């Protein structure tokens, strides 16, 4: 089932000024229910402009954006932005900067409260959201979010988005700036959300070794256009092109490419460290024969 459909989307910042910049050019992309989609591309390639279209923070200048049954291109009647922003949950870069309330519970309850839900419903949602991000309700609910660690703060911020019960979750650089433990926790969280809470997840990341651990489909932005839209297992057949765009490729792919160039052919798709390790062990155990 299609969740989000974008056709020929073009966006220009500061139009008709000396600072005019084409941020998106003729982008066509479909996001389906169940997608675990990664978006990569260097700074300024259009990734953030693109995702801001998905919950109506930027209105389409040219082209079509359809999210579920909400058509963002139509002028009259005005698209239902309230519903849109409920259905598409957006976790921005450094979301912990958005925390504002004096307790964790109040912060997470802010969104649902604005939906004018009943007290019981709000409480249920806060509990669920906290459980989903792995924060014990009774222990954390009355604590100040500002006394928590970086990784914990980020989980509170993500819980605030989950409490809106979105159907699609979009995360922009969810692990940026965290220490190794915080990173691992957020990664595991995203994986578990995919299985239990939101069926469709879109992640923007600069860390290619990280994003290939969980995404199944990767979209590459380059110079305001979609350069590639491929399953993870196929994307790195284009290693040369990706490197030419100034993008990184996973370490396992680099090692495998080096081996290939030296006449050593490992078996199977090699994207993650685990893939590489088991392929090398297998190769060695078979005495170099496949």
């Amino acid at each position, binding site marked *: 089932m299609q969740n989000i459909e974008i056709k020929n989307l073009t966006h220009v910042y500061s139009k008709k000024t000396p600072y005019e910049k084409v941020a998106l050019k003729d982008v066509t992309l479909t996001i389906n229910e169940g997608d675990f989609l990664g978006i990569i591309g260097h700074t300024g390639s259009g990734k953030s402009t693109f995702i801001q279209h998905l919950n109506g923070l930027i209105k389409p200048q040219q082209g079509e954006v359809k999210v579920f049954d909400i058509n963002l291109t139509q002028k009259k009647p005005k698209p239902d932005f309230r519903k849109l922003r409920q259905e598409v949950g957006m976790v921005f870069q450094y979301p912990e900067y958005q925390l504002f309330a004096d307790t964790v519970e109040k912060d997470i309850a802010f969104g649902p409260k604005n939906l004018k839900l009943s007290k019981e419903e709000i409480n249920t949602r806060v509990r669920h959201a906290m459980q989903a991000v792995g924060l014990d309700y009774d222990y954390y609910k009355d604590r100040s979010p500002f006394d928590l660690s970086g990784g914990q703060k980020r989980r509170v911020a993500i819980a605030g988005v989950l409490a809106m019960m979105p159907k699609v979750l979009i995360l922009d650089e969810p692990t940026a700036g965290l220490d190794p433990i915080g990173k691992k926790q957020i990664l595991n969280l995203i994986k578990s959300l995919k299985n239990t809470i939101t069926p469709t997840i879109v992640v923007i990341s600069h860390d290619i070794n990280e994003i290939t651990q969980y995404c199944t489909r990767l979209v590459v932005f380059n110079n305001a256009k979609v350069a590639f839209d491929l399953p993870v297992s196929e994307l790195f057949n284009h290693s040369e092109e990706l490197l030419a765009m100034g993008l990184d490729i996973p*370490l396992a792919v680099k090692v495998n490419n080096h*081996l290939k160039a030296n006449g050593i052919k490992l078996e199977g798709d090699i994207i993650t*460290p685990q893939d590489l390790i088991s392929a090398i*062990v297998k190769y060695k155990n078979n005495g170099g024969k496949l």
Partner: protein
Amino acid sequence: MKAIHISGATLEYKTQTGGIVRALNNVSLDVEEGEFIALLGHNGSGKSTLAKILNGLLIPRLGEIEIFGVNTKDISKIFEIRSNIGMVFQNPDNQMIASIVEDDIAFGPENLGIPREEIIKRVDWALEKVGMSEHRTSTPFKMSGGQKQRIAIAGILAIKPRIIVFDESTAMLDPQGRKEVLEVAKQLNKEEKITIIWITHYMDEAVDCDRIAIMNDARIVAIDTPQNIFKRTELIESCGLDLPLPLSISNSLKSQGIDLQGEILTENALKEEVCKILK
């Protein structure tokens, strides 16, 4: 000559709720001039506090800090210390003050009352050192993160410090930007003999520095060469850190009977060793 001498630094913060958190607990560290030291540790382990006691932004409750022999407690010498030690923080936007690159870089030396001709020379030199000469009259606000961070570094260089502390200066950058900034730091270390303290959460950025210091719970728990530090897997894990990815792959291969040689810390070492063993 010792660039940095810290002995027994101890410092506490008060929390909002009235509690007390010890940020530095009897920390001692000596850094020789020209060294490149990476400082690793999880969030809240004390790294940034350590950075801030170096130039007298914070004065520890106990202990002494000397920068090229000058004690940070000596308030009359604080400007001498601060012109010897530059800081580059996480977000370059917070460190930009002018709308034109050359003005931004000239800001530091202007405040030191340096003659105009000398300032112009320094701006030229600093821009060249970070590879941004052609952007001299551009505006920093439209640049990529890596470029902005290099401008921020040039601004520090113009003060001609002998030590630069990079406090997670690559955290907000994309891989390209990270590479650029790390390269600039290494070059300044090599060519200008500037002492570097490099604070990071990226293990791979630490693999070819001179020494790694690990902080945990307000203490320096280990300081040694990258080879020796990353051998201590248990210590790394107990401090909430990671092994560099090439090393964790090679360890995993070794444990499955693949006989790789040496401590493999870098991508190139991994490529070569794996290739050797499979040929």
